[in-house]
């Protein structure tokens, strides 16, 4: 049996209602089950719109004109109601405050499950599982509003994974977090990818902290996919620099010093790789 990609997009173009210029043009790509995909590109390039096409908010909620095909777990997104898609694709927003509304963390996580009309026992089981996986058992009785930004982001993730989606989309989840909280969050996401096998799509500008965790980088510009490959290939390419993505500092430093001698085109991505590369040149 051949395993189909979990997400398949063919010739997708999309224009929001009231706009004349398409936000997405002729996008074709596939994402394998269990990938950790980083989606990046300049502001306004269509990253968030593409994510909305995967969870069905486009076109079901936003309207507008979509052509082409988006398939998630071999289901056509156009034909599925958002509620059905929510069990396949979980979405964590930039600002967790926008998606939290309950008086306690437990209630917050239970809410989505109640909407699935699950038996009480299974709801309890999933609630405990989500609290445990994300490591927030100690917060269960707290109000989401009195938590720090990093903690709120964890609650939002727990309430999404309780729905047991196969795909998790994060739209710039660390943009309002301090660097320590951002690092922790990326590690949690990586763990969900490695231990539960969830497919991750992470929209992000801050690539320094991600280059060793992700295994596929998609670069968009002006509504099109311009690059799609392994981090080492994408970050090392002159095109990435031209489009203006946040190439990790380690790669930039490597490129600056690489000019002084003959080196390979595969840049180091971690501190360890960089120092061992440098030592090899001495």
């Amino acid at each position, binding site marked *: 049996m051949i395993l189909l990609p979990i997400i398949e997009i063919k010739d997708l173009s999309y224009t929001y209602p009231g706009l004349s210029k398409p936000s997405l043009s002729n996008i074709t790509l596939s994402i394998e089950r269990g990938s950790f995909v980083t989606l990046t*590109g*300049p*502001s*306004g390039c269509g990253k968030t719109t593409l994510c909305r096409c995967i969870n069905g908010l486009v076109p079901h909620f936003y309207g507008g004109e979509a052509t082409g095909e988006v398939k998630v777990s071999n289901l056509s997104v156009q034909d599925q109601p958002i509620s059905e898609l929510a069990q396949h694709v979980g979405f964590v927003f930039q600002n967790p405050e926008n998606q939290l509304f309950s008086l306690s963390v437990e209630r917050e996580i239970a809410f989505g499950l109640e909407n699935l009309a699950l038996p009480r026992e299974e709801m309890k089981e999933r609630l405990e599982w989500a609290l445990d996986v994300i490591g927030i058992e100690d917060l269960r009785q707290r109000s989401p509003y009195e938590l*720090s*930004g*990093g903690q709120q982001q964890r609650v939002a993730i727990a309430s999404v994974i309780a729905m047991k989606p196969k795909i998790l989309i994060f739209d*710039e989840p660390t*943009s*309002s*977090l*301090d*660097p*320590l*909280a951002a*690092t922790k969050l990326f590690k949690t996401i990586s763990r969900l990818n490695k231990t539960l096998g969830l497919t991750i799509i992470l929209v992000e*500008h801050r690539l*320094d902290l991600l280059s060793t965790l992700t295994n596929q980088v998609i670069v968009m510009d002006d509504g099109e996919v311009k690059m799609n490959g392994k981090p080492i290939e994408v970050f090392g390419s002159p095109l990435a620099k031209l489009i*203006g*993505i*946040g*190439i*990790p*500092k*380690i790669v*930039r*430093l490597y490129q*600056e*010093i690489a000019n*002084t*001698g003959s080196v390979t085109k595969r840049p180091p991505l971690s*501190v*360890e790789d*960089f*120092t061992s590369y*440098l030592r090899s*040149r*001495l």
Partner: protein
Amino acid sequence: MINVENVSYTYPSGINALKEVSVEIEDGAFVAIMGENGAGKTTLVKHFNGLLKPNEGNVTIDGINTRELSIAELSKKVGLVFQNADHQLFCETVEEEISFGLKNFGFSDKTVKKRVEWALEILDLAQYRKTSPLMLSGGERKRVALASIMAWKPKIVVLDEPTLGQDQNQKERLLQFIKQLNTQGNTVVLVTHDIEFVAECNPRVILMAKGEIVADGPAKKNLTNRRFVKKASLILPQITQIFNELADLGLPKDVIGTYEAKQLINNLIKGEQ
């Protein structure tokens, strides 16, 4: 000059956001205030333009206590650009937005026109002059907010999280703009936790945690100190992480910026050959 003397501030909700904070910021200084969410960074800078008045202690701007001045008077000297641009944008076009403050300060029509053109130009917004700020992207809205404050040329410019939501190209333009402002003699204060951005511009760094200042000194010193960095919920800049591993080669550990790193490594490679 900004002088903060033993300032404490508690919000009506009971959160004690500043605890006996003292700091001096001289004219023409370039300062980054860094620290975890809720450390008191924004509360501190809101005292600079009188949006907040201390419960205890004093804040003086050029020797005048902020309690004796209105926010309008203080705003002429201290321009504060909010973290969330939407909190300060309300006009129908970008042009109107930028001229609003100028008109309120009573500048002549001719000056208003000249200043608006200048601000549109330097922040690369001329093509949006007739556009509603609400139609623009997050990054563009932040530039409009900045333009509307730069237009009245405050001597002290305070930017709260200016790099948030900005892509790489916008960050680089912002970096150039900030350096230019500072070279022209403006005092520039950044509130940020974008450690890699600060590492490239090397300002004085004030680290805050839990309503207190935990360290105050050059970026090169504070951002390479593991203990300080951890206290402020930051991480070491990537360049510093590399140089920490290379100390046995005779390289210094206190390196934060790409340019200096490149020079040092290139010299090392040349020396070996």
